[in-house]
């Protein structure tokens, strides 16, 4: 396997995706491919349809037309829960954490573990110790744990720590794909560095990652391939080593013609 011919079977792919909002066409026959083990960056100008693409892949919006395939099988997501159950975890730009609740509560939000036996089955009692233990393990795995208290509220954490919890949650439960929307947008230089390390850490365990970012240095640093989105569709996919950041910006804004290799990079 070399860098120019990726594995033939994409983990996650989209064909002819269309999403309209009234008269606005946010996705206009867009295609998408994510291959095993890679970090695919998705870049595009404001209004290019990146968000709609990502929301479609993570189940937050439903498509008007087109097909999404996971491991070659067509899938249909009508809610974020559907995508999560299929193994696609998303780290939203807003993080989707509940600030007043604890780290452990947040990591297991929507997929709580119940106690075994009577208490769990009939009283629906939660197994707090198990959830706290697993949450601690998952944070440890990513080297995020010098935490003294897994029960401290999210709002008592710094921005980087919150991002860390959100990434850890996605990495812990995502079995197929992790999608990250602008993970460094709200962070300082040092915290961004830590989050980029986290992203590479997650990839090194074989998890493919879709990274949406406006930050060209970050994109060129961590991405294996770059999907350039323009006017509601995939313009081209490039290798970060073949082009410069200004080339990428030129493609994305229409200042340069898309390269010929577009279709199957």
């Amino acid at each position, binding site marked *: 396997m070399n860098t120019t011919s990726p594995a033939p079977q994409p983990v996650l792919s989209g064909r002819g995706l269309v999403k309209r909002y009234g008269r606005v066409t946010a996705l206009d026959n867009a295609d998408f491919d994510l291959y095993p083990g890679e970090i695919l960056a998705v870049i595009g100008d404001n209004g290019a349809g990146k968000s709609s693409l990502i929301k479609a892949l993570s189940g937050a919006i439903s498509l008007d037309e087109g097909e999404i395939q996971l491991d070659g099988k067509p899938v249909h997501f009508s809610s974020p829960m559907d995508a999560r159950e299929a193994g696609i975890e998303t780290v939203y730009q807003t993080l989707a954490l509940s600030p007043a609740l604890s780290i452990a509560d947040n990591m297991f939000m929507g997929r709580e573990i119940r106690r075994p036996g009577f208490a769990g089955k009939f009283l629906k009692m939660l197994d707090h110790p198990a959830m706290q233990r697993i949450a601690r393990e998952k944070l440890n795995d990513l080297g995020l744990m010098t935490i003294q208290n897994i029960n401290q509220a999210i709002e008592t954490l*710094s921005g980087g720590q919150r991002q860390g919890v959100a990434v850890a949650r996605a990495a812990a439960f995502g079995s197929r794909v992790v999608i990250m929307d602008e993970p460094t947008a709200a962070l300082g230089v040092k915290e961004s560095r830590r989050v980029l390390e986290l992203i590479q850490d997650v990839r090194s365990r074989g998890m493919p990652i879709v990274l949406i970012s406006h930050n060209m240095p970050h994109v060129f640093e961590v991405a294996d391939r770059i999907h350039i989105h323009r006017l509601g569709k995939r313009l081209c996919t490039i290798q970060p080593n073949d082009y410069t950041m200004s080339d990428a910006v030129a493609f994305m804004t229409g200042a340069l013609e898309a390269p010929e290799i577009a279709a199957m990079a």
Partner: protein
Amino acid sequence: MSDDTRTPRKQQEFEQGLGRSDKSVAAFTPHNRSFLQSTQHLLHGHPTMIPVIVLILSIIIFGALAGPKFFSPFNLSLIVQQVSIIGILAAAQSLVILTAGIDLSVGAIMVLMSVIMGQLAVTIGVPTPLAILIGFGGGALAGGMNGFLVTRIKLPPFIVTLGSWNIFFALNLWLSNAQSIRSQTLDEVAPLLKLFGETIAIGGARITYGSILMLAIFAVLWFILNHTAWGRHVYAIGDDKESAELSGIRTNRTLISVYVLAGVVCAIGGWASIGRVGSVSPQSFQEANLQSITAVVIGGISLFGGRGSIAGPLIGALIVGVFNSGLRMVGVDVLWQLFAIGWLTIIAVAIDQWIRKVSS
């Protein structure tokens, strides 16, 4: 795509100064905090602490002022008995407020369901247990209506429940002809309706079944809110509804179930209120809506949702009870009771605002 073929990426040029910097940014380390910050953090973790302290202090102060009769088992059990109905309503109110909503109709649902139970059992002659069950069903329906309007029609809870408060009150006057069902009639036809007025005497204390019911309701809700997924979802929705939705919680379904449960708790309160008053009285508990909100707020549950313990409103109701009893025993005019409770409410909200600003 394999790792070995990738050129190892370097740090960005502008980041090279980072080498010598403090790397502890995303690490979770303890900080040194001032006393005030520590207090803030402590209260953030334990929002019921202030109400508990206020309750203990008020008991000590009124005990000192009013003398030993304040501490008599009779008086203490009387305080619990007096706050039992408001306490039950505060429990229902807490559920809604935890979701960042508010329910102005709790008192109206309670009185309406007590009237329905009374009319069915006495005027129509339905077996009393069935009448009570229908009342519970009515409570669920009334709460469900509020929940439907809030989630599906997307109206603000304040407006929905302000409207339903009036609607339920009008229905209550219509069904009852604004007439009470007298105590003797209940004793003859449907004594079960007065069950929660019965008392157990232990020493000098006279504990009503209604008091026990209130404590049981709080205990059950405490378990549900802290030890079931549904309970954690209620907190998450009140905290940040959009995040909860993205985390995979069916927020609207959970919200409707919150209003339904609150309605059922109000209906249980309606049954208990018949025992407390001794009759089915359509004009009773007119101020119960606002008193229940007062108890919730004094109990440290945030009006902005997602914060506070269900134990808080119980403490809040008891604080109100202790103030009323203590001030009466000391011989202070009733208006000063209102004055004191008013300040307590404002101070409680101010403290909540401060606690919510906690940061690391």
